[in-house]
Structure formats: structure tokens, C-alpha cells
């Protein structure tokens, strides 16, 4: 028990500088009215690692990442990306900086086939452009579809895709923006074993190509084969950090999950 308290004290004094990782959050805070969703959270993500960002439902995982990726500005704290202060930048600018994300609730464009959904992510943020006329973005979009395992269905409407297909499309869309850091929100929710393995392979190969991944999930079961390091939060604060093995045996984490149930 005494070990546990020491550790918490450790955590609270931790301070990160802009150069401590590719993505660094320092004292990140988000309040909604009187409710504190993210409570002075600090963390650093190293280049080319796969970080599992874990916490029970309502722990503040999504809010944290909405603040980091610019969906809404944080109430306080600083976000550094590649050593640069990017706090409060709008979402589309974060994408330009090299940070992309997938969504838990998919937002496919239902008026066009899968490949054109991916193609949108290749469109430049310009009003006047000749990009795409020569068919090169279409070719690239098709290649991305094949890489994420949508090769057979890329000409279908996204509404015809099964759940796993939607996830792959989200992943493809995020990849198409050529991110350095990609945030993947609950990739394995509602997937069968075989599909989990397929997606795991895709993400591992992305890491091998130099990408940094942050995978958000409410439990770690599906993530064990994927992540290098886990970061566990509850009520908007960090409760543990370490390798998956360490996290599994951490009493604080076990307590957070239904009073000691194994995660």
C-alpha cells in the first residue's frame, strides 16, 4: 500500500517540457460548467510508440482527446506537439500539423462510395486547385483502401459496410491525411477475434512505417498484443502508467474497475 501512495506522489509532481515527447500535455484541464472532466492531466507520448489510453466509462478519455485534437479548447493547460505549443488550435489545423484521429461514432459521407470518402481526406485545403484532375488522388485513395483491408468493398456505399468495415474506413480516412500521430478511438468495440487481429496488424504496420499511435479504450483486454505502454485515467486524473503487465497488477487500477475486478 505504501508503494502505491509513493507512486501517486510521484505522478503529481511530474512535469513535462515541450521536448519530452512528440505529443505532450501539461496540466490539461477541461471543465463543463462546474464539472471537471479532465483534472490537470499531464502526459507525454514518445515518437513511434503505441500508447494505450485506458479508463472506465466516463473517465474523461474522449474529453482529453477532444481537447488535444482541437475539437474544443481546454479550460487550462498546454498541449505541445512536436515541441510546438498547439493549445486550442482548431481541429483542421491540428490535422495540418500532423495529428489525425478516428471517431467512435463514425461519420461516413453517405452520398458517395467508400473510396471517395477516403479521397476527401486527400483534398487540399485550397479553393482553387487542380489536384485530383489527373486521377492521382483516386489512385492513392484506392491504395489506402487496399492497405486497410477494404479492397473488395471500396466502390460500395459506406452504409452497406459491416461494423468492422466502418472502422477500417475511419482508419483509412485518418491515414490519408498522412499523420505523424494518430489517435484511434475504441477500435475494437464490437469486433470479433479475427477482425481484431486484422486491425491490430494494420496498426502495427503503421507504427513500423514511423507513425505514433494512441489507442483509446475502456479496457485493456484487446490491446495487450498491440500497445507498448498503458496510461490509465479515472475521473480525469492519471491513476497509473506502465507496461501492460504492470498495469494489470496495479491495485489502484483493479480498484477502479469495479472494486478489484481484473481487467
Amino acid at each position, binding site marked *: 500500500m505504501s508503494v502505491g501512495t509513493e507512486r501517486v506522489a510521484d505522478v503529481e509532481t511530474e512535469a513535462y517540457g515541450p521536448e519530452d515527447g512528440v505529443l505532450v500535455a501539461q496540466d490539461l484541464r477541461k471543465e463543463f460548467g462546474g464539472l471537471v472532466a479532465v483534472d490537470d492531466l499531464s502526459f507525454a507520448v514518445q515518437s513511434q510508440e503505441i500508447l494505450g489510453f485506458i479508463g472506465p466509462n466516463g473517465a474523461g478519455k474522449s474529453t482529453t482527446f477532444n481537447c488535444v485534437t482541437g475539437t474544443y479548447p481546454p479550460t487550462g493547460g498546454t498541449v505541445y506537439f512536436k515541441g510546438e505549443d498547439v493549445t486550442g488550435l482548431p481541429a483542421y489545423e491540428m490535422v495540418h500539423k500532423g495529428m489525425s484521429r478516428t471517431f467512435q461514432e463514425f461519420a461516413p459521407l453517405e452520398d458517395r462510395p467508400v473510396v471517395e470518402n477516403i479521397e476527401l481526406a486527400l483534398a487540399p485545403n485550397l479553393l482553387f486547385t487542380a489536384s485530383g484532375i489527373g486521377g492521382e488522388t483516386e489512385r*492513392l485513395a484506392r491504395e489506402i483502401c487496399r492497405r486497410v483491408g477494404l479492397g473488395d468493398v471500396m466502390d460500395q456505399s459506406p452504409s452497406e459496410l459491416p461494423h468492422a468495415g466502418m472502422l477500417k474506413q475511419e482508419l483509412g480516412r485518418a491515414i490519408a491525411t498522412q499523420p505523424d500521430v494518430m489517435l484511434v478511438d475504441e477500435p475494437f468495440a464490437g469486433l470479433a477475434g479475427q477482425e481484431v487481429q486484422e486491425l491490430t496488424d494494420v496498426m502495427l504496420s503503421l507504427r513500423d512505417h514511423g507513425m505514433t499511435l494512441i489507442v483509446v479504450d475502456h479496457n485493456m483486454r484487446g490491446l495487450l498484443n498491440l500497445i507498448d505502454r498503458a496510461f490509465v485515467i479515472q475521473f480525469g486524473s492519471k491513476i497509473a502508467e506502465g507496461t501492460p503487465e504492470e498495469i494489470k497488477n496495479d491495485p489502484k487500477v483493479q480498484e477502479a474497475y469495479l472494486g478489484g475486478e481484473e481487467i
Partner: protein
Amino acid sequence: MATQTPHEGELDQRRTQAVTTRLVSLRHQLGILGIVLLGLVPTVMKPSELTSFTFVLYLMMFAISWDVVSGYTGQLSFGHAFFFALGGYGTSIITTQHGLPIFVGIVGGTLVATIGGVLLGVPALRLEGPYLSLVTLIAPLLLYQSFVLFSDGIPYLAPKGLGGTSGLVAPPPAIIDIGSSALIQVDQFWVSALGKYYISFLALLVVLGSTYAFTRSSAGNVLTAIREDEAAVRSVGLNPAKFKIFAFVFSAAVGGFAAAVWMHAGPTAFPNTEAVFGPGRIDKSINVIIIAIIGGMGTIVGSVVGALFFGFADTVIGGLDVAIPGVELLFGSELTIADTSPLPTFLLGMIVLVFLPRGVVPEATEFGRRLLARRRGEEPPPGGGRSPVESTLAKYRREIEDILGRDGE
């Protein structure tokens, strides 16, 4: 995001090739044929018929201007006549009250409409939600009132006034006409009708060309994606506000330009409120929406076809002076079908919405594609998901529910 495209070197060559193959595709051959036929219309029409048909060309341009912003982004403008009024009055005042040449008037009128677009669009489109619709509902009515308010004159801008509801006193000079005020004076009616038609046709080509190029570039894809889901657009690094505002301002400029040319080359153009807003102040704004939806929302070409349908229906129905049986017995006075205008035209729009929800042009294209595929013995291509009208309506429902604080299903 540094989008690196493979084989950068041969890109120009491939683009040229892609454009060429696209232009010789059947769809575009038909399109070009259509334009050529439109250019040959004067060979089969009497000058008086041609004069009324010339107005259809302006309907096309007005509907295209609406389609660029509302058809593509799904941000419905209910008051596009605001821009037609700005363009039309702009050029009329520049030429008659400031005595400047017609060319300056047209450029100036376009500019006035563009500024109007910036003033409405920038504040309304930075917000996500149905705010643009609300603003565009009010804007033409305010403009209408200001025509009355400043009927006697605005210092420097319009020294002789805006003329109230009856319009400007001095008609804007025509580019080509019989009278002595025209730029090019002719002495025969048919020459003037022909000249007006081709000037209008030229303006249509300019409008069609610029809007077509813009919407077929990748920016067009971004616009339609905004119609589907703005969050998705933001999440791939595109700024929706920038695209929406540009589309709106561009649309305002196109509408203003069309109205400005109309004042100098149109058949029945006169700068009064009835001409620019329609007899009921909002008719013209609503008509362009119906035209674009009949032809196919978010296609540009659809507006051309829609205007033909609309003009045709209007002419046919306007000519039906047959009394509707039974009405006289009920109400004591006779009512002809022509009197019920614009109800039949609206009915036509409703029928198209129900049976051809994508509009005439996209449905015809898909039908043709299936037919070709069947003839070649191939699998028919898959249908293309949700129609623009459906998406737009779904978006509005969502946004209004957000405002009312109600959760969607």
C-alpha cells in the same frame, strides 16, 4: 500535411490526358451537344418567341448561382433574389445615375452583389447551423424596404434615388436595341432579339464555365462533403467555414453578374422590385430553388435543364385559359388553369421530388449508365447512396433539434 503524390514528374501530362478522356466521354459529348443546340435555338424560333425564351437563359444563370452554394453545401439560401436585386440595381444606377459605360456597370453590379455576399455570408457561415437560411430569408425583405426608404436618393451612391416599389425611372441602356439609347443601334426587331439572345448566351457560357470548373475540382467534393457532415470535413484537415463562405460569395457574384447582364441585354428587364424579387417579393428566390431541385441539386447542369422545364411549364400553363370545371358553381366566378399559376409549376416540382428525388439530370445519367452497362453485358453500377435533398433535409432536422435541445433518435 504534405500530400506527396507518387510520380510527381509526369503529373501535368496525366492531367491533360485525364481531362481529354473525360471530355470525350459520352456524358460530356451529350452536354456539349446540348449547349450547341441551345446556341442554335434562334434558328427555329420566331423573334417574339426568342425574346421570351431569352429569359429562360437568365433563369438558368440564377438557378446555377443558387446551386453553387445551396445545392453543393446544403446551406439553403431562401433569398437569392437579394443578389439579383443588388446586381441589377447596381448596374442600373451606375449607368443611369453616374453616367458610366455599360461594361463598368456590369462589373460594378457584380461587385455590389459580391459585397452583399460577404456581408451576409461571413457572419452567418462561421456558425454551424441553419443560420444562413434565416439571414437569407430576411435580407431581400430588408432590401425591398430600403428601396422604398431611399426612394428619393442616397447622397453620392444613388443621387436620383432607388425609385420605391415602382422602380428606377430611367431604364438602363441596352447593349443592342432599336432605340437611340442603345450601345449598338439596329433598325430591325429580329436583329435586336438575336443580338440579345447571343449576349445572354455568352453570359450563360461564362457562368456555366466558371461554376462547372469550380465544382468539378476537388473543392466541389469538399462542398458536397460539408452538406453530408461538417465534422468529417474538419477531421481531415479542411476548414469548412472557408469553403462555405467562398461558395456563398462566389454564388452572390454569379447571381449579381447574371442580373447585371440581364438589365442590359435581357428581354423584359427593368430595374423594379417586381422584376428582381418577383411579384410577391419572394417568388424569384423560391423559383430558382424549384428549378435547381427539378434539374438536380448540386449538379450545375441540372439548373440548365430545370430552367428549360420550368420555362416550358410556365409557358404551357400560362396558355391554358380553360376554365377549371366546378369552380364557377362553388365560388361564383370562373377560374382558368392559367390563373392558378404558380401552383401547377410548384406541383411539377413536388412530383419531381417524389418520383425523381435526385432531379432529372442525375436520374437520367444513372439510367443511361445502367442501360449502357446492360448492353455491354456488365453488372449494372451500384447506385450512389443518399440524394442531396435527403442529406440537406436530414442536416436541417439535426441542427434544428440541436437548437431546440432535443436529442435525435
